[in-house]
C-alpha cells in the first residue's frame, strides 16, 4: 500500500503541493486527476524521490520511502515526456535497465514486444510518440514493479493501443499484486479502469475516494413538476449544480435521492423523476466547479 501523508512542497515562494494525502492499495489502480498545473507530476516525482518534500511522509507497505531505500527498487516511473538515452534501441535499453531492476523479465519483454508489435532494434529517439509510449510501457511492465507510476501514459495513443494498454495493465494488477498510480487528463479512459480516484486542484487533493463510492455520493437527477417551483426549498439535499431545460430541472447533488423524490411527490404534482449516471469527467467538473475552477467570468 502506498501512503502519502501531509505532503507539502514549495518551489521558491510558490506552494506547489499542500497537505497531500494519498492512499493507494495493492491490486488497485489509482487515478490522479486534476486541473492543468495542479501538481500531479510533482507528486509522482516526490514518490520516486526525484524531489524532496518540505513536509510530509511517503511510505510503501509500511516502510518509509527514502532515496536509496530498498523498497524504491520495486518502483517504476514512466514520465509524461519520455526520455531515452541517446542512440539506444529498446533491446539495448532493456539490457541496461536489467542491471538495475532485478525482476526484469526477458520473457515478458519479448511477449510484450510482439503484443504491441514494437521493433526492439529501432533507435528509440527515431520512433513516433505513440511507439515511444508503447516502448516505455513495455519496459515498465517487464520490470514487474510493485508500484507503477504512469504519467499521461495514454496521451496521444489510438483507441486500439489504449485498449491493449489497459488489458495488459489490468492483467498485471490482478496477477502480480501491483499498485498503479495513473495521472491523466483523459478522464473517460480512467473512468473505465480506476478503482480509486484523487481529484486535485491547485496543489491540493479535493477529494479522494473509491470511484464507485464517489459515483454513489454524487448523483444527478432530472425532474419536472406541475406549477411554480422554488429551488431554494431543496437546500437540505446539497444541490451542487442545477440546470433548467424547459420545465425540466437537472440537479447534481450529494443528498439522498429517495428523500428528494418523496419530498417532491408530497408537495408537488411530480411529472418526471429520473436518476442519471455520472461519469468521472462530470464528477471532476462538478468538484472543480465547487472551488470556482472553470467558472471564471
Amino acid at each position, binding site marked *: 500500500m502506498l501512503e502519502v501523508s501531509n505532503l507539502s512542497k514549495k518551489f521558491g515562494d510558490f506552494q506547489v503541493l499542500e497537505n497531500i494525502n494519498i492512499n493507494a492499495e495493492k491490486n488497485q489502480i489509482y487515478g490522479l486527476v486534476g486541473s492543468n498545473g495542479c501538481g500531479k507530476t510533482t507528486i509522482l*516525482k516526490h514518490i520516486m524521490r*526525484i*524531489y524532496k518534500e518540505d513536509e510530509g511522509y511517503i511510505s510503501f507497505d509500511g516502510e518509509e520511502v527514502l*532515496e536509496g531505500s530498498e523498497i524504491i527498487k520495486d518502483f517504476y516511473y514512466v*514520465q509524461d515526456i519520455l*526520455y531515452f538515452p541517446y542512440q539506444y534501441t529498446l533491446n539495448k535499453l532493456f539490457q541496461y535497465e536489467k*542491471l*538495475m531492476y532485478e525482476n526484469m523479465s526477458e520473457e515478458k519483454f519479448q511477449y510484450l514486444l510482439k503484443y504491441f508489435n514494437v521493433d526492439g532494434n529501432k533507435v528509440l529517439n527515431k520512433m513516433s510518440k505513440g511507439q515511444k509510449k508503447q516502448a516505455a510501457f513495455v519496459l515498465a511492465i517487464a520490470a514487474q514493479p510493485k508500484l507503477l507510476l504512469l504519467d499521461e501514459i495514454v496521451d496521444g495513443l489510438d483507441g486500439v493501443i489504449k485498449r491493449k494498454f489497459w488489458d495488459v495493465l489490468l492483467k498485471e494488477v490482478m496477477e502480480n499484486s501491483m499498485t498503479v498510480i495513473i495521472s491523466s487528463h483523459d478522464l473517460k479512459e480512467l473512468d473505465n479502469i480506476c478503482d480509486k480516484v484523487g481529484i486535485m486542484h491547485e496543489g491540493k487533493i479535493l477529494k479522494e475516494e473509491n470511484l464507485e463510492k464517489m459515483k454513489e455520493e454524487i448523483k444527478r437527477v432530472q425532474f419536472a413538476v406541475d406549477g411554480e417551483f422554488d429551488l431554494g426549498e431543496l437546500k437540505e439535499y446539497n444541490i451542487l449544480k442545477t440546470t433548467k431545460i424547459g420545465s425540466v430541472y437537472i440537479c447534481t447533488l450529494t443528498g439522498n435521492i429517495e428523500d428528494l423524490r418523496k419530498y417532491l411527490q408530497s408537495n408537488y404534482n411530480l411529472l418526471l423523476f429520473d436518476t442519471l449516471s455520472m461519469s468521472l469527467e462530470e464528477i471532476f467538473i462538478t468538484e472543480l466547479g465547487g472551488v470556482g475552477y472553470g467558472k471564471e467570468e
Partner: protein
Amino acid sequence: MEKKNNFMQLLMYSIKEKRNWALLSMVIILVTTLMIPYILRADEEIFIMFGIIELFILVLINCLVDNNFLHNEYKLAYYRSKPVTLRKQIIINIITNTLFTAFLLVLIIFSVVFHGTDYEILDIFKTLIPWLAAGILLASLSSILSGNTLMAGAMTIFNFCLPLIFFLVTMFIFSILENVVIGFNLNVLSDYFYNNIYRLDYLYFVIYSDKSIDFIYVLLLAVILIFISLLLHWCIKRRKNENTGFIVFDGYKYFVAVLSSLIIPAFFSVSTSQYISILSRIVISFSLAVLTYYIIIAFIEKSFRISKLSIKVFAVSMVLFSALTGGTVLVANQYKNMVPDPEDVKIAYIGNNSWAVNEVTRFLEDPSRNENMTLNELTRNYGIITFEEIENIESITELHREILNNQEIQGGDYYSSRCIIAYWMEDGSVLNRYYVLKANDSQEDSRAVEIKNEIAHKIINSSEYKRQKYYYLYDEEYYKGRSLYAKLGNNHNILEAFESVNLNDLRDILIIDLDDYIEENKDAFLELTTWYYDKYRGREGYYLEIYEKVSDKDSNYLDELFIDNFTNTLNYFK
C-alpha cells in the same frame, strides 16, 4: 529478500559505454602528439604540451557530458527514477572519467617515450595529476551545483580558481590598506601573505614542478580530494532537482555573484594601486562591484528585475567586506608607528628594493637554499646592503622614526621616493615597512630633509656600508687573492681610449677619493636608499669600470664608479 548490489555491473557498463570517446580521444592525442611532430620532425615538446591542453579539454567535456543528466528535467527524471542513488551515479561517473583520464595520460607518456623526449617534461605530471584529479571531482561538484551544463563548465573553472580569487580579494583589501595606513604596502603584504600564510604554490602544486614528491604532496592532495568529496557528498544530499536553470543552490548562486562582483573591483584596485586616491578608489570599486553583481544576478536569474533578497545579500556582503577591510585597517593601525628596539634587531635594511628583502628573508629562513653561500656573499651578489652593527641599526631606527614623523625628501623619482625598511629580529620575526615619500621640489632643503640626510650621512660613512657598497675596495676578505682591474672611461668622449689598470695600483688613492666623496655627499639619504643613485643623478664624465679577471678570456663586471670629481684618481691616469 536480499537485493543484489548492481554497482560493479553499472560501473562496467559505464566503462564500456566510454569506448567511443576513448577511441576518438586516442586518435586526437596520438595524431597531435605523435604523428604530426614525427612527420614534421618538429619540436615534440610543444606538441606534448599541446596534447596536455587537449587532455584537459577532453576530460572536462567528458565529465560535463556524463553529468549532464542533472541539467535536463526529463533526463534527470529518467535517471533519478532508476533504483540507483545519485551518489552512486556520480561515483560511477567519477571512476569512469578517472580511468579515461589515466588512459589519456598513458597515451601522452607513450608519445614522450616514442619521441625520446627529455623525460623531464614528465615532471609536469606532478602538477598535472592533482589538477586533473581535483578537476574531475570539481566538474561533478559543479554539475551538482548547477542546473545547466554550460554553467557547470563555467563553475568548474570558477571553483578551480577559488583559491586564486580569495587571494585577489585579499590583495583588494591590502590595496585599500596601503592607502590608509602609512608603512603598509600591497606588494610587501601580498608577498608576505603568499610566502608565509597562503601558499598558493602548494595549493596548486606548482612548487612540485621542480621539486620531488614528498609527504606534504601526498597529504595535501589527499586533503584536497577528501575535502571536495565531502562537499560533493553534502551537495548531493541537498540538491533541489526542481531548480533546473543556471544554479541549483541559492546559497551558491549568491556566493558566486558576490565573489565575482569583487573580482573586477579587485583587479581595478590592485592594478591602480598607489596611482589614485583612496576616495576615488572606493567610489569606483563600489560602482564596479554593484554593476558586476547586477549583471551576474540578472544572468543567473534570467531577469532584469533584481529581487529584494539579492539586494539584501549584496548589502550584507558589502557590509561584511567593509568590516573585514576596516578590521584589517584597525589592526594595521596599531602597528604603523612601531619601530623596534635596536637591541632586538639582528639585521636591518633600508632601500627601495622589496625583492632584496624577500631574498634575505628566504636566506635566513632556509640558508641551505643557497648552497655554501654566506649572507654576505648573497647580499654582495644581489647588490643588497644590510646592517648588523648596532650603531647603524640605531641610525636606521632613528631614520625610521623621522620618516614616520615626516615623509619629505629632496627630489627623487618614482622608485627613489619608495623607501623600504626591514628588520630581521633576534626572535626570527621580520618587520617590514614600505613608505611612499613626498618630494620637496623647492631649491632649499627643509629641516625634515636635512635631518634625514644627517642620519643617512652617518650610515653611508660607516665602514659596514662601504664594505658592502664598494666591497672590491673596502672588503679585505673579498679583495685578497683576486685579480681586480679598473678601466677608465669617459661618456663625454667615447673615443678617448684607456688601458685597464690593476686595482692594486689604484686602490689607495681611489679609497681616499671615495672617502672624500662620501663625506661630502649632500644627498646622503638618496645615496643610502637608491641603489642606482649615481645613474639617477645623471653623473657624467669620467668613470671607472671595475671588473675581475677570472681567466685570460673571461672577466666579471663588478661596478661602474663615476669619478669626475676624484682628483687623485684622475691625476693617476694623467
